[in-house]
């Protein structure tokens, strides 16, 4: 089965389609890395099924797919962080078992995780060489001088202006990202996987990083580049592999595909089908905020939200987007600024107050902040309405079920019964339960913080459709998302935040992904 690698192109899982790119020649060498038939199930979800992946020395191989497509799981298997259920991994043609992270490091496999894994109170040098400290003279001791010298040399070679003895806590996010890169390079790995390394970097820093990556390719390192920014894939990669819902959808040289093709592979449908948008904003303003301030989190934030409008809030993680919705919901009340709801000036100092005014929040982390995972669907939906559904403190079970059933049907929440515990529902259905809870209150304004995170594509489309239906009913929706295509597809307008400020606004018609990215990362609008 070794020899010339085939270009497998599949639709969905299983059904093979004839290779379309047979004219592209691929190196005859043994691949540096070959993963065959990898499968992995987590409780309740098949994260990967029969996924294959090859990587050659001196190649940058992009791995793309939506959240939950299985990219990270595949990389976690490669680096020994999670065990695989089935499949084989070959390094330079020889089968290997990667049982734990230490084994992966020994085999020359390094990963830069999406969530930065640096330890804030340790220094740059301690973080880079964690687990591989140079030994001191006495057994068990560390030669700190040698450690700092090594780190200094490494940082200098990479052109990084960082002191090895600085605690990581004092670095910016971008600098931390660079320390992560330095750590991966210090492993002298032949295979380096990078999981969304640019998600927190400015344009200039991205260029520096790309410079490193290209230099590594020249040195013969095999690089796996995980991203959902398609432009980066075309700028950097030699080949691209697309995963969707745990399946391998296709692999192709980047010259042989275009953006539309990759998106189609990623989401399994065309853009029109993905974003069913039917609502139109109305002229009346439902929510108006002016000069919101809160410590350094929010700096002079002003905007208007119309009835029936879906307003997007774009920006990097930490740009202050979540602070806006938390302030509007009264979780972290603002220190200065004015809020008008339907023309009336209001003060929102607590979530109770916000709910009374008709504002709902679907928070970022639904499991920790919105759901009672051990409780039934009926309770999760009606919990904010119990006062109306009970008499003298006793809950009227019949009316509660009536109400819950109404929303289960309206939102098409897939659950075997109203008694089903939330833990056993899929991410998409859990999210619909959260939304249903707010619908019981007939909100005027709905704040959605990353509403489709960890939700599969089918459920995403349903959530978009639901948002559109709510907007058509006159609800004003403020939506935060880190996935720009989603914002572009769903929103009427998009506001861009950086460092606690609003730095730009785009209409649906004029919004372009690159322009938003530029603003969000610190560039100016051209």
């Amino acid at each position, binding site marked *: 089965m070794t020899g010339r690698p085939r270009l497998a192109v599949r639709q969905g899982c299983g059904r093979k389609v004839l290779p379309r790119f047979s004219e592209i020649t691929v190196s005859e060498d043994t691949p540096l890395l070959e993963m065959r038939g990898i499968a992995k199930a987590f409780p309740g979800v098949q994260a990967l099924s029969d996924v294959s992946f090859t990587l050659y020395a001196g190649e940058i191989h992009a791995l793309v797919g939506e959240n939950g497509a299985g990219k990270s799981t595949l990389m976690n298997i490669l680096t020994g962080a999670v065990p695989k259920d089935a499949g084989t991994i070959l390094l330079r043609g020889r089968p290997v078992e990667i049982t*734990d992270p230490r084994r992966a490091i020994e085999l020359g496999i390094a990963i830069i995780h999406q969530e930065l894994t640096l330890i804030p109170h*340790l220094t740059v040098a301690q973080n880079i060489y964690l687990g591989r*400290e140079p030994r001191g003279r006495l057994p*068990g001791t560390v030669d700190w001088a040698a450690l700092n010298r090594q780190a200094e040399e490494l940082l200098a070679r990479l052109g990084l202006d960082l002191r090895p003895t600085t605690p990581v806590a004092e670095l910016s996010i971008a600098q931390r990202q660079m320390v992560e890169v330095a750590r991966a390079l210090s492993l002298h790995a032949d295979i380096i996987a990078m999981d969304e390394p640019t998600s927190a970097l400015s344009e200039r820093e991205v260029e520096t990083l790309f410079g490193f990556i290209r230099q590594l390719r020249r040195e013969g390192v095999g690089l796996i580049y995980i991203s959902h920014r398609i432009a980066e894939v075309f700028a950097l990669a030699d080949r691209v592999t697309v995963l969707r819902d745990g399946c391998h959808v296709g692999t192709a040289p980047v010259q042989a595909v275009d953006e539309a093709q990759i998106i189609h592979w990623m989401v399994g449908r065309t853009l029109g089908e993905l974003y069913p948008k039917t609502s139109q904003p109305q002229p009346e303003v439902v929510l108006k905020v002016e000069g919101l301030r809160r410590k350094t989190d929010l700096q002079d934030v002003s905007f208007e939200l119309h009835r029936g409008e879906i307003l997007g809030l774009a920006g990097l993680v930490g740009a202050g987007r979540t602070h806006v919705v938390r302030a509007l919901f009264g979780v972290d009340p603002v220190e200065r600024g004015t809020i008008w709801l339907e023309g009336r000036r209001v003060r929102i100092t607590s979530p109770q107050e916000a709910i009374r005014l008709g504002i709902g929040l679907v928070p970022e982390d639904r499991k920790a902040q919105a759901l009672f995972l051990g409780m039934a669907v009926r309770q999760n939906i009606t919990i904010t309405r119990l006062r109306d559904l009970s008499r003298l403190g006793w809950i009227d079970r019949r009316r509660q079920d009536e109400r819950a059933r109404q929303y289960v049907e309206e939102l098409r929440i897939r659950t075997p019964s109203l008694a089903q515990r939330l833990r056993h529902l899929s991410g998409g259905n859990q999210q619909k339960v959260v939304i249903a809870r707010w619908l019981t209150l007939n909100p005027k304004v709905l704040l959605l913080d990353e509403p489709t995170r960890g939700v599969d594509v089918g459920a995403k489309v349903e959530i978009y459709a639901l948002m559109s239906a709510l907007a058509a009913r006159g609800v004003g929706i403020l939506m935060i998302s880190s996935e720009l295509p989603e914002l572009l597809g769903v929103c009427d307008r998009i506001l861009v935040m950086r460092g606690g400020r609003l730095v730009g606004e785009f209409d649906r018609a004029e919004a372009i992904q690159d322009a938003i990215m530029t603003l969000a990362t610190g560039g100016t609008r051209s």
Partner: protein
Amino acid sequence: MTGDGRSRLRRWLRPAPGTEGRRRFIPVLILLGLSAGIALLNPTFLTPANVITVVLQASILSIVAIGQTYVILTAGIDLSVGSLVALGGALAAGLAVKAGLGTYPAILLTLLVGVGLGAISGLLVVKGNIPPFVVTLAMMAIGRGLTLVYTQGRPIAGLGADFIFWGTGEVLGIPMPVWIMAVVAVLATLLLTQTRFGLYVRAIGGGGEETVRLAGVRPGIIKLSVYMLSGFMATLGGILLAARLWSAQPNAGIGLELDAIAAVVLGGASLFGGIGGIGGTLLGALLIGVLSNGMNLLEIPSYYQQVVKGMVFVLAVLLDFATRRRPMP
């Protein structure tokens, strides 16, 4: 205006999340202020004899708190130290006197038992995945119970001169427990700052456990070791306490876990783990020693002293929470 003043104070105390900054000066300032206050109210406080008494009293607490420091650095907690102090004293005294093993074999065996009980706690934390608070709460009850069973609730007296020397003897005018504390402190500092083990202990706390694991180090062994170390230190403290009092008391060390944890936190360690050091813990233990001694000198009834200590502990934790955000994961 007060808001501004407070935030300025906070910024001064917290230059960057996760770093120490000037916060480390707080225990020194409190110690100096407290000492000055007590000295003004009662001049006996500063007499050489009293100063030596304070340091002597603080030395056993310091030893126990040094073990606790390691546990807290991994974001754990060891509530069993007070009971292990009692067990350490009783077992060493019993083995030496009643079983006739002789002082040194008895001490050695007792320290091994301390390490063993610590290992059981550690294993339950690491393998059983039980929160340290729960495990060591159980061990606290078990340790106290074993002590009462072994002593039948009565003190064990009649210790030999070579045993008592370790609690009451002096070299160069300085009591033995203070010497031992000094040696333990130096070794513990070296272990924490110069070895890989110490680095990993600091790395695990504050949310670094997964990072450590992904760096190819097994965090379980590190966590297990800190409970063993804490068990060792607690029984060592118990042996010294018995030697100092000429007898082992089954009720020794009641409430000592609170003092030990308070010493660590007052010394600038974070209950979230990752931040803290031996020097700070020694300062914290000295602070508690000064407080106890001061309250005795000022003739505050011992029942009230408990209340004060509890409040000091809460204030120390409040300081930890207020001046430090949870370290970033």
